[in-house]
C-alpha cells in the first residue's frame, strides 16, 4: 500500500495536533508551578520560585512519596514472583481450566477500579477483620500488578520457544539449573519492563487505594487528592507533578534502550 503524499502529510498533522493536545495540560501544570496565582488563573499574573522551594521542604509530601515508593516496591516484588510463575505455567503447559486461570489474572485490571476496591475493602474489613493500612494497600496493588508482569513474560516465553531449555536438559542440567542459567537470563528485560509498568501503575493508583487505605497511611496520590483543593497547597502539587514527570524520563529511557539493544542483537 503506497500512501499518497497528501495522506502522509495529513496523518502527520493529525499526530502533531493530538500530541499538542496531550502535552498542553502538562505544559500548563509546568507553567502554573511558577505562577504567583494560588487559584490557577490564566495567563499567570507573575513568576515565582516560592512553590519549588516549599515543595522540597513539605514533610507531608516527602513522607507520602516515601510511602508510595514502599508500596510500589513491595507490590512490584510480589507481582514479579507471581506473574513469572503463572506465565510459565500458562505458556509451557496445557491443562484443564487454563482459560479460566488466564481470565483470573486479567480480571483485577479488566473489572472497574471501584469493583476491585470495594470487594477488597469488604474482604479485609468484614471477612478477615484486619486493620486497613500499608499491608492492605500492598496486597491490593500486587493483585492488579500481576497482569503487567504476566503480559511481558508471556510474550517473551512465546518468542523464546523451548529448544534451548531442552538442549540444557539433554546436557544434564536439572530443572533449577536450566531455569537459573537458560530461562531466567532470557527473561531479564521482559521482567524489567514488567516491573517498571507495575511500579508505575502502583505509584499512581488512587481508586483502589482510597478503598484499602487506613487512617494515617498516605500514599502520594492520596496526599495530592487531599491537597488539590487547598489554595496554598495546589501550586506545590504542581511542582511535585512536574518533578515526577521529569524523573519518569529515566525509567522510560532505560526501557527504550533495552528494547533497542535487543532489536540490534536479532
Amino acid at each position, binding site marked *: 500500500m503506497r500512501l499518497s503524499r497528501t495522506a502522509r502529510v495529513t496523518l502527520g498533522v493529525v499526530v502533531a495536533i493530538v500530541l499538542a493536545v496531550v502535552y498542553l495540560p502538562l505544559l500548563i501544570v509546568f507553567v502554573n508551578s511558577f505562577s504567583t496565582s494560588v487559584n490557577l488563573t490564566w495567563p499567570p499574573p507573575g513568576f515565582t520560585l516560592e512553590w519549588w522551594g516549599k515543595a522540597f521542604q513539605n514533610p507531608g509530601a516527602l513522607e507520602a512519596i516515601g510511602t508510595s515508593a514502599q508500596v510500589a516496591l513491595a507490590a512490584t516484588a510480589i507481582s514479579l514472583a507471581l506473574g513469572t*510463575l503463572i506465565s510459565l505455567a500458562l505458556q509451557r503447559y496445557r491443562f484443564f481450566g487454563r482459560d479460566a486461570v488466564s481470565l483470573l489474572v486479567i480480571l483485577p485490571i479488566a473489572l472497574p477500579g471501584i469493583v476491585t476496591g470495594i470487594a477488597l475493602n469488604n474482604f479485609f474489613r468484614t471477612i478477615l477483620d484486619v486493620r486497613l493500612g500499608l499491608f492492605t494497600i500492598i496486597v491490593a496493588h500486587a493483585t492488579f500488578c500481576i497482569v503487567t508482569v504476566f503480559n511481558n513474560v508471556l510474550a517473551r516465553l512465546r518468542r523464546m520457544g523451548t529448544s534451548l531449555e531442552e538442549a540444557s536438559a539433554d546436557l544434564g542440567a536439572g530443572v533449577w539449573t536450566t531455569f537459573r542459567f537458560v530461562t531466567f537470563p532470557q527473561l531479564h528485560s521482559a521482567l524489567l519492563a514488567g516491573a517498571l509498568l507495575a511500579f508505575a501503575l502502583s505509584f499512581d493508583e488512587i481508586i483502589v487505594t482510597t478503598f484499602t487505605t487506613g487512617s494515617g497511611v498516605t500514599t502520594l496520590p492520596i496526599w495530592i487528592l487531599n491537597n488539590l483543593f487547598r489554595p496554598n497547597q495546589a501550586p506545590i502539587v504542581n511542582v511535585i507533578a512536574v518533578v515526577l514527570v521529569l524523573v519518569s524520563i529515566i525509567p522510560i529511557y532505560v526501557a527504550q534502550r533495552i528494547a533497542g539493544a535487543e532489536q540490534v542483537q536479532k
Partner: protein
Amino acid sequence: MSSAATPHVTAGVPQPRDTPARRISVFLSQHARVRLGLLLTAPLFWLGLVYVVALAALLITAFWTVDSFTGQVRTEFTLDNIITVVTGSLYQTVTLRTVGVALLVTVIDIAIALPVAFFMAKVAGPRLQRILVIAVLMPLWASYLVKAYAWRSVLAEGGVVDWMTAPFGGSSPGYGLPAVVITLSYLWLPYVILPIYAGLERVPDSLLEASSDLGAKTWRTMGSVVMPMLWPSIIAASIFSFSLSLGDYITVNIVGGANQLLGNLVYTNVGAANNLPLASAIALIPVAIMIVYLTAARRSGALENL
C-alpha cells in the same frame, strides 16, 4: 525433556553426583504435572484467596442489610438492596449516564488512536517511531490526579480554553458531563493507542504491498486487510477505556460539577452512608456490564491481546 542419567554420557561430561537436590530435579523433570502444580500453587493461592473470595463475598454482602438503629451489617438474606438498585430511578439514570460516558470515551479514544497508531507503525521511520512511543508513554507517568486537575484549570471560567476561544466568540464547556468525557478520553488515550499500535506492528508490510499490487486502493486495503487483523487489538484497547471509565469517580468529582457516576454512589455508600450491602449491590452493576463485555470480547479472541 528426558532424564540425564543415560549410558551415552561421554568421557568429557562427568556423571552428576547423586544428591537429594539432584533426585528432586530428576523427579520434577519426569513429572510435568507436579512441575505445573508447583508453578500454579502460589499465584492461584493469592488470586483465589484475595480476589475470587473477595468477589464472592461482594456478591453475598449485596444480599445482606444494615440495621438502621445500630448501623451494623445484619447477615440475613434479603433481596431489598438488589430490588432498590434495579428499580430505583436514581440508579437507572446513573447507570445509563455512566455507560453512556464510558461508551463515548471509548469511541473518541479509538477514533483518535487509529490514525496516530497507524502513523507510528506504518509511516514514521524507526527513529521517529521510537520518539513517538516515548511521547505517548510519558504522560502515563504524570499523576492521574494532576492531569485531571490540569483539565480543571484548562476548562475553568477564565481558563486556557476560554482564553483561546474568546477571540472567536467561543467559551469553555465548563464543568459537567462534557468535561468528564474530555478528561477521561484524555486520561485513557495512551492505554488505547499502545495496544492498537502493537496490533498494527504485527500486520506485515508485505501484506499491504501485496494488496496494492493486486490493485486495491488505500481504503480497500484498510477495510479488507488491516481492519480484520486489527479487530482483536481494538477490542482489547476498548476494554481498558471502557472499564476504566466505568469505575472512575474521582475525575467526576474534579471536573464533573454536580454529576454523579456509579463510582460516586458506591463510594458514598461505603464511606459517609456506611451501607456496605447497598454499595456492594451497586457495584454489581458494573460487574454485570463487564461480564457481558468480556464475554463478547472473548469471542473475538481479544483477551489474548490484553
